[in-house]
């Protein structure tokens, strides 16, 4: 069983590795950020699979932290994409920049 879980983790990693290509190609910053987000979710799944395969429950905490902080980089990105650098893309006055 452990063998299967590790193989599944390796498969997932290969799958999300394709996301690296999207980060390189873009073309927009939003594409790059979303590809990084996919890698993040895939990484969480890989950690969970490895934790189960190696029977190291402490590794689930690593997945928990990754999931908790998964939105952080993207929040910083959308902040930086507003005209003031400190606005909100949902605010009409930030519709410039």
């Amino acid at each position, binding site marked *: 069983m452990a063998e299967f879980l590790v193989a599944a983790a390796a498969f997932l990693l290969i*799958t999300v590795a394709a996301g690296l290509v999207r980060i390189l190609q873009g*073309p927009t910053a939003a594409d790059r950020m979303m590809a990084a987000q996919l890698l993040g*979710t895939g990484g969480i799944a890989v950690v969970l*699979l490895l934790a189960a395969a190696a029977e190291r*429950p402490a590794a689930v905490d690593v997945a928990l932290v990754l999931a*908790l902080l998964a939105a952080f980089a993207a929040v910083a990105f959308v902040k930086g*994409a507003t005209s003031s650098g400190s606005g909100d*893309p949902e605010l009409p006055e930030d*519709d410039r920049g």
Partner: protein
Amino acid sequence: MRLALDLFTVLAVSAGAFFFLAGTVGLLRFPDVLTRLHALTKADNLGLGLIVLGLLPRAEGPLAALKLLAVWLFALLAAATVAQLVARVALRRNGRSPGGSAAG
């Protein structure tokens, strides 16, 4: 019993991996930012959910199972909000300067 649970794990994890594959194919093949966003957030969170589901029978106790579910919930929350915000940024960029790729 053990065998049935193992079979369940194999099936759910495989299905989860399939959704990740679908998400990646979408990310690479779909024509523009918004459709790619769509492919990603739908597919990879379903994928993670199925993998969590598959690993639940192997959790050591109710607390460990709860932690697995929390991982999925956090990831769902992050994906939903990030998709919304990034889509907003992408829409504006499209309206102004097509293909502009610099941040800030």
